[in-house]
């Protein structure tokens, strides 16, 4: 399923502002480009790389993300990039065939979790407590 803007718009812009510069004008072209470049970096260096190189996670303890899950995460990443959402701080495998986008601000964390079965969840944590969990697919 191709995500709608509505289903992904809450990633992470509203809850977790940029930690590096709280006075920044989020509409500035420079910041816009920086955010877009960061999205592109995750797309090219993580998602595309993992898809092109299935042996990247050649570890006993890791089930690498399968192509359909990588494709799903790519669709979300491109749409979030193109709708000027703030980029994540990390894009990592979950170890069981899924992928996680995470944005952090102090003790707060916002994750998009692309599970191995194709479901997608948005999870917000404050420290070690889950404060919100929502399915997006």
């Amino acid at each position, binding site marked *: 399923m191709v995500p709608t803007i509505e289903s992904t718009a809450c990633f992470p812009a509203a809850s977790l502002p940029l930690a590096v510069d709280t006075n920044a004008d989020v509409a500035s072209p420079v910041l816009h480009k920086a955010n877009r470049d960061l999205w592109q970096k995750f797309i090219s260096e993580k998602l595309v790389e993992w898809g092109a190189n299935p042996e990247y996670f050649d570890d006993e303890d*890791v089930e690498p993300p399968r192509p359909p899950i990588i494709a799903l995460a790519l669709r979300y990443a491109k749409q979030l990039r193109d709708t000027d959402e703030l980029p994540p701080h990390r894009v990592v495998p979950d170890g069981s065939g899924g992928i996680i986008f995470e944005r952090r601000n102090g003790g707060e964390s916002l994750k998009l979790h692309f599970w191995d079965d194709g479901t997608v969840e948005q999870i917000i944590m404050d420290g070690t407590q889950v404060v919100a969990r929502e399915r997006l697919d």
Partner: protein
Amino acid sequence: MPNAPVPIDDDEVLYRRIPVSCDWYEAEGGVLYPEAFAPRRDEHSGISVYRKRFKTLEEVARGRSKQGYYVVSLLASELRVRGLNVEPRPEVEDGWDDAHAEIPSLHAGIRKTNEADELQAILAELGMVIPVEGPFIPHVDQ
């Protein structure tokens, strides 16, 4: 009695290995992320840890991996204080391993729950109390 599980004392150190390739540990800032403790789909009875009493860091880090492993240390007493039990589970696929133990409350059946996310976050906090070791890079002939 042969082949009886050896109880885990409160002062025991437990190891969990973390694949370097997954970026679940940032060596530069010393930050350990909760994914390091996410149950795999085959961890039905609890996530695996290894007992320092029976296995060295190097032995725990030995495995098929291109980039190698970090090894996280946890104190049994700290797990128990946070309500996380740890039990000896020496019966493994290959036979008997006194070093093998499990944290039963965190298992594959609860992967997509708040409980799992919260337990993983607690373990990530506890896993940073003792410095993470590694990376242990595999030998060329492995």
